[in-house]
């Protein structure tokens, strides 16, 4: 079949997923259709509710910058990130060194490694 593959452990059929998504989408559209359409346009009912405060006109005042995303993850993984930052020193001689050391290690493994 054009859309189905077998891995030897199981199978994947993209059409099944498309039917599944179509079903879920229909359900979502049905839920949305239950919403009230009789709200008054261009009044307070139409405004974004922002904890009772006026919504700032500049988007940057109310959005989380990308560098703050996953702040907790970064703090939790601080020891690893310290190592990784040190590793990515930006120095060309460091990068050449990593390459040479890797070649030496791989060479050793290939030489002593059996079949």
């Amino acid at each position, binding site marked *: *079949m*054009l*859309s*189905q*593959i077998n*891995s*030897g*452990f*199981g199978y*994947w059929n*993209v059409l099944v*997923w*498309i039917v599944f*998504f179509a079903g879920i989408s229909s359900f979502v559209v049905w839920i949305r259709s239950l919403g009230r359409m009789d709200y008054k346009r261009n009044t307070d009912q139409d405004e974004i509710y922002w904890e009772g405060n006026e*919504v700032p*006109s*500049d*988007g*940057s005042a*109310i*959005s*989380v*910058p*990308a*560098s703050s*995303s*996953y702040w907790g*993850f*970064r703090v939790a*993984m601080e020891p*690893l*990130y310290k190592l*990784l930052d040190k*590793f*990515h020193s930006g120095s*060309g001689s*460091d*990068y*050449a060194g*990593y*390459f*040479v050391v*890797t*070649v030496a290690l*791989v*060479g050793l*493994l*290939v*030489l002593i*490694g*059996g*079949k």
Partner: protein
Amino acid sequence: MSIQDHLPALIVMLPLLGAFLTPAVASLGKKIRNIFFVLFSFLILLVALSIGCAVFWGSPMVYVMGGDSFAIALPSGMSYPVRILFEIDAFGALLALCIAIASFAGALFSVAYMDKFSGWKKYLSLYFMLTAGALGMCVTGDLFNFFVFVEISSIASFGLVAFWRDKPEAIEASFKYMLVSQIAAMLLLIAIGTLYGKYNSVTMAALSSMMADGFLERVVLALVLCVLAFKCGAFPMHAWMPDAYAEAPTGVTCLLVTVSQASFYGLIRVCYSIFPKIAAGGVVGWILIVFGCMSMFFGVMMAVVQHEIKRLMGYHSISQVGYMLLALGVGLVAMSDQQNMIAYGFTAMKGGLFHAVNYSMYKALLFLCAGSLYYATGTRNLDKMGGLARNMPWTAGMFVIAAAAISGLPPFNGFVSKWMIYESSFAIHPILPTIAMITSVLTLASFAKVFQAAFLGPAKTGFVAVREAPGFMLAGMAVLTVATLLLTFFPGWFISNIFEKAAGALVDNASYVRAVMGGI
């Protein structure tokens, strides 16, 4: 004799011709230059498609330069081929097709993206040289020519990464890449020279038929393996990649993604076709698996905390290459035992090749989306972007498709190839798919961050009047989107007609040798 017989030569000759014609054609005006750029790239794509059709539904193509006949690899009385020789099997044709698609998409994109910049003659010449180098790596049948094509693509990419000479970061990125790349190139030359000294041949098929398992051969294998793993961005030799990808003009980054795949091609060709006696079932497969796992995990860990969009995607490239190395490493480990090969090894190889093609398409598309954002906003810093989906709906839509695909969300193509890799690597050890799945979750997290930061939320004050990318840029992105969607909706067709044949070409080493050496 038909034009079909000369396709292997044409696929390298066309971009080389393009590179040398550029200075003359670019002087004839902007319109003619743009038509020439797009048309030539399209011609290269047509040739790659024709080769693909001939090889996927036929037999490997062999082309000999400078002999009495282009079809005779082994003239009478000779034990080994002595001329420049191209050999294209299903694996080579597959990668060449990916490079040609990315080159065409990058050309379309560059027409509008680079319009306001000068230096077009250099840009076009280097762009075609890079295409020629990458395509040559996938079609050549001898190791020395492989080295020559690696150098052609490297030199062109140094120039293109440093194309914006007024930016110190671009010069620095190019210099660092050049520094390590030249050390790698010297080691590659030493390795090839060593093989020539011992076996009197650099033809891959001839070497494969003679290769023994000895000290010298193992040293050569280790050198070539590391050089090509460095070129495709494997951890811990990856550090050049985020810098180079971020600083190169976006049309070039799109092509660089597939150039790294040409190095991946070389790595796999060397392990599976030239050194199978040493690599199959031994420590080499495990080295690839370890490279793969480290690249996946550390690449995505670095990506998730970046806020410079192209740099973030550069780290994701390292992580994605990890999946392919893991899959082809699993294939190598299984290769010595036919039962293991049938049980999971062949699935891993198909999954790895499928992922290589997926990666070439959706990652090139992601870079083009990033370029489109940079074109519209003038910044690559995600902190400064926001609410762009309203003004750039096409870019946003294509970004969602590519981001969902790279994150492995069903039903996209990225999910299918990852699923094949998870299932097959599980047979070796459960920790391998676990690392791969964690990587996939973190990939989703970082692309959710990019989408939220760049496209969602209220528009930033400076970007209220931002407009959608020009038509040529959208057309370049559309080419890759269509390819991604085709791979999504017809995975069964692609696997049975293309990836199975490409993986089969790697496993069936005898037919690769036989195409050049005849019955020897």
